[in-house]
């Protein structure tokens, strides 16, 4: 069985409150180190410097949105293989299919159960 160890997670969302709540869940329930980014641009920068094991990426952000950020992450060797999970407020079937086609490991719909989030992330990263 292919085991995945997460030590550091990056949370990318333009909404500060969502970043704080999600970060708290990741730190206290997941037991992970947390890096936050408020935009796609910041996410690209910090993913190079902080080398997270998984990225939680908001799909709809002003500027560089989720899909565009993922595409750029994939272009760079240093970040190309980091598993990415989308956070989305849209729950359309075709969006989900599109995100998977872009190479996302999974999709979590807002509003999610924060207490159960770390387990959900582990499950998606393990590819279950």
């Amino acid at each position, binding site marked *: 069985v292919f085991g995945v160890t997460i030590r550091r997670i990056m949370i990318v969302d333009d909404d500060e409150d969502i970043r704080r709540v999600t970060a*708290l*869940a990741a730190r206290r329930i997941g037991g992970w180190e947390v890096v936050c980014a408020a935009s796609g641009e910041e996410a690209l920068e910090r993913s190079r410097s902080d080398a997270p094991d998984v990225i939680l990426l908001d799909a709809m952000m002003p500027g560089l949105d989720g899909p565009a950020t993922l595409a750029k992450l994939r272009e760079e060797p240093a970040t190309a293989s980091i598993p990415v999970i989308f956070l989305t407020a*849209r729950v359309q079937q075709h969006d989900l299919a599109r995100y998977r086609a872009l190479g996302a490991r999974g999709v979590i719909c807002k*509003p999610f159960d*924060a207490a159960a989030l770390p387990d959900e992330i582990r499950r998606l990263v393990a590819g279950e």
Partner: protein
Amino acid sequence: MSADARQREARVATLEQLLEVYERSVIEQSNKLYAEQQRMRLQTTLLESQGEASLDGILSSSVDGRILFANARLAELWGIEAPVIGERSYRATLGAMAERTADPAGFLERAAAAEAAQASREQIALRDGRTFDGYSAPIRSHEEELLGRVWYFRDISAVVEIDRMKNEFISAVSHELRTPLTSIRGSLDLMASGIAGTLPEEALSLTRIAQSNCERLVRLINDVLDIEKIDAGRMELALDRIVLEALVERAVEWMRPYAAELEVTLHFESRAPRALVRADDDRLAQVMDNLLSNAAKFSPAGQSVEVLLERRGPRLRVAVTDHGPGIAPDQHARVFQKFAQLDASAARRREGTGLGLHIARALVERLGGRIGFSSEPGVGSTFYFELPECSA
């Protein structure tokens, strides 16, 4: 006077009499004819004025392709030259219209198909972005002889646009609501989980109230979005062959803890193991969830809810029976309507959105099945859905 002369006189008198009768008859006839002519003229004027006054574009054609009538509005709506009545220009007129639609070949194809049909109706998308409602019907004589066909075209762009804006608005608001709800729900979840410190018992119970109402709000948003998708014809289904028994089993297991909270037990009996349906797994589970949670909510404590899967001819039926208060006959017509929470006081949990059964029906019908119920006040209700069985 000679006999001869008298005879002649008598004949003349008879002739004069006849002439008079004849004259009178001719006058009478011509009066009638005149009146009839006046009536016809009035009819024609009436028909023409009615046709011209209409906001719809109207085009009537004969079976041999001549134009019987076309109003000015038709030319104006379509932006074509006014068709000349009587000319063999019906085909040319349809052709000119087709060029202005977004799908000319499709328009002509459907127009040809419509000619064979009794009455037909379709929405026509134009190249310039407008939408017409097109309606056509055969013109028949009193003796049922086919004389031609009449077409009506109405510009419904405004209605279509308002509908689109309404759906877009609902969708945008729903998505916007999710962002603040994510923080609220997340904060409540983390508070209730105790990671931010142990809460005093009362604070914890208040947190749980906020949590469950937050979830209710999420359900409402999801339901409103579903309705919007259904109304806009944008409900996407991921169809797959599904073992119905497994799906029902899963839904029953999923609902068990909820039912247990209400002290209701769930029993599932399958008389069609391994039987397949073609359906969207998630959406059908949503239908099951709805029927099961309703049954549990309306059951008295200590009662059971029975779920039965069986064959009904070429279909598979899943029936969920409760022993609740039942539904009064005068409420039956409202059961599947939007926001139709009936006598909610009968429910032991008031957390529904009033949209569940409406959505369930739309989903089952989209899957080619049907949904229904039977109920007896004081005895209970059975809600069921049926889907065509597909071969292995």
